């Protein structure tokens, strides 16, 4: 049995069904991230785990013990809210000590624990400040330290980095991961930022419309999306609609032949291929002279280039359809808007999705 489990959980608000037959298992010490579009039920899942919402059906267990009916106070599951919800009437020290005071822990232990946490989150010396005297990043650290103080079994983070600016966000993301590793605390985070989910988590849960679409490591989710939704929601993908001629394995993007890895196509005629922009390559047409009848070569014209720092994204028009190609670093300098190019890709980089599922 997993450390934390949600089994067949269902939840509706009035007529709006938020979670449908939701099953999730989380191992001890794991950093799990729930990612999905707004309204997909991520925060509700977190609130159900914290005991702030009651599920309509299903069970939640922690260390094998059912806790579905337990009040939040008894669960030992702390939560960091999106707005931090710091207590404005208490100092940084008071905020962090709050959970320990509630447990009636002696003064010296409280002081030691708070100082230790201030050290961990890098806020030593600020213990006498009030929340309004802190920056957004510092407030976020106080909220984290406050949640960690009662030594919870599970830490829940509801979009904890959404209220800070991009630079602080990146630094805090790394720190969050470091602290989680150091303390080995089981953590469940909610985010709508897929990059955040991929970079910080041991496992990612992709949610949509109250259901789990896919659970896996960040690499699995990114490289092997199981369906159309995951392929399009996580990362950036080109969706190439291709047609199959007869019963053969050969497919065509417009009239260009595409070579696919061996698979069973179940007789479907129309397929969608998902190819990540960074797996595509650009060539000059003369470089490929004599190979015009090779597969996976799509001639087109660069319509737009956008510089993103580490990569440059090119918008290539192929037979009226746009294909995005990411080119790293200085390699991108030789390509300009209006250039005639040929886009190529390896069959191994293609994800094929038919109907709702994956092949």
């Amino acid at each position, binding site marked *: 049995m997993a450390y934390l489990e949600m089994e067949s959980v269902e939840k509706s608000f009035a007529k709006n069904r938020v979670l449908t037959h939701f099953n999730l298992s989380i191992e001890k010490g794991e950093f799990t991230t729930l990612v999905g579009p707004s309204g997909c039920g991520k925060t509700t899942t977190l609130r159900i785990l*914290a*005991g*702030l919402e009651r599920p309509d059906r299903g069970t939640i267990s922690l260390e094998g013990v059912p806790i579905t009916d337990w*009040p*939040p*106070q008894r*669960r*030992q*599951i*702390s*939560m960091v*809210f999106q*707005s931090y*919800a*710091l*207590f*404005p*009437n*208490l100092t940084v020290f008071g905020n962090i000590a*709050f*959970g320990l*005071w*509630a*447990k009636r822990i002696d003064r010296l232990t409280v002081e030691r624990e708070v100082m230790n946490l201030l050290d961990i989150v890098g806020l030593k010396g600020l213990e006498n400040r009030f929340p309004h005297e802190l920056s957004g990043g510092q407030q976020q650290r106080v909220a984290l330290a*406050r*949640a960690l*103080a*009662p030594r919870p079994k599970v830490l*829940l983070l509801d979009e904890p980095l959404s209220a800070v600016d991009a630079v602080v966000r990146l630094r805090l993301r790394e720190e969050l991961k470091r602290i989680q590793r150091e303390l080995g605390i089981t953590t469940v985070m909610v985010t709508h930022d897929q990059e955040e989910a991929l970079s910080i988590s041991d496992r990612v849960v992709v949610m949509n419309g109250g259901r789990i679409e896919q659970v896996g490591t960040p690499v699995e989710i990114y490289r092997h999306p199981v369906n159309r939704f995951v392929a399009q929601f996580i990362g950036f993908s080109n969706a190439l609609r291709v047609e199959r001629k007869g019963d053969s394995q050969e497919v065509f993007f417009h009239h260009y032949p595409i070579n696919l890895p061996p698979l069973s196509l179940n007789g479907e005629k129309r397929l969608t291929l998902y190819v990540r922009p960074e797996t595509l390559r650009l060539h000059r047409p003369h470089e490929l002279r004599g190979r015009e009848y090779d597969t996976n070569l799509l001639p087109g014209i660069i319509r737009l280039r956008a510089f993103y720092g580490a990569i440059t994204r090119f918008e290539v028009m192929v037979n009226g359809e746009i294909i995005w190609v990411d080119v790293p670093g200085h390699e991108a300098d030789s390509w300009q808007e209006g250039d005639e190019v040929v886009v190529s890709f390896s069959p191994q980089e293609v994800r094929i999705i038919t109907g709702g599922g994956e092949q």
Partner: protein
Amino acid sequence: MGFGVELVLVLALIFMLIYILFPVGAMILFSVATRWDRTVWPEGYTLSAYSTLFRDREFWIALYHSTVLALTAIALSAFLIVPALLTAELTLPRVKKFIEAFSLAPFVIPSVLFALGLVETYASLPIPLYGTPVLLTLANTVLAFPLMYRSVENKMHTIGLAKMVESAITLGARMPFVTYRVILPNLWSGIVNGSLLILSMVLSEFALANLMVGGSWPTLSVYLYSVMRVDGQAASVLSVVSFTFTWLLTSLVTVGGVRRYGLS
């Protein structure tokens, strides 16, 4: 902001101050005037009207009644509204719409109608509440409801109290602890604001007091009315005293809150 806009705003501020302070100043001046009906400014100044008022035993009784009435209405409305609002906010958000709708009722129903309704109802009931200060207190609490509700609800939303409470309980804190360490300190200024509004309302409320208890249990406003019929200057003295008394009480409550919770 352009100079023109700034000038308009400054003029608006000056006009507002004159509009508010002019009658108050005139009232204060009239209360200490020896005579002020033949000249632009008072002919002389005296505090004799004040000493007459303070020597009147009826005044102290009325002041005592009004204070008891106001403090009871404040306490009752705070005890009724704060927990109800918090419960609605945390567990039954849909109920809030009904509370909100009900909170408007005392604004909509005229006081006279409300008082006559209560008098009619309780006079025919076998409950010994008709004509008593208890019924007046309860009626004042109803009138106070929107004032406390708006102040507390506004404060609750501004500071995001619901999330703070949720955060506190996930940290293992029980409700009494959360109430003492989180809810009361953070809602205090909202409760104080509501209390000040109720205090002013109860001290100046006349229709309910006159119709429900009248001269048998006179309040400050009933006393003011009886004085006004005899002596205009005594009425302005009483208004100044009532104004000062309200200001003193509100200052006490505010300072108390600052000392207790470090909040303004």
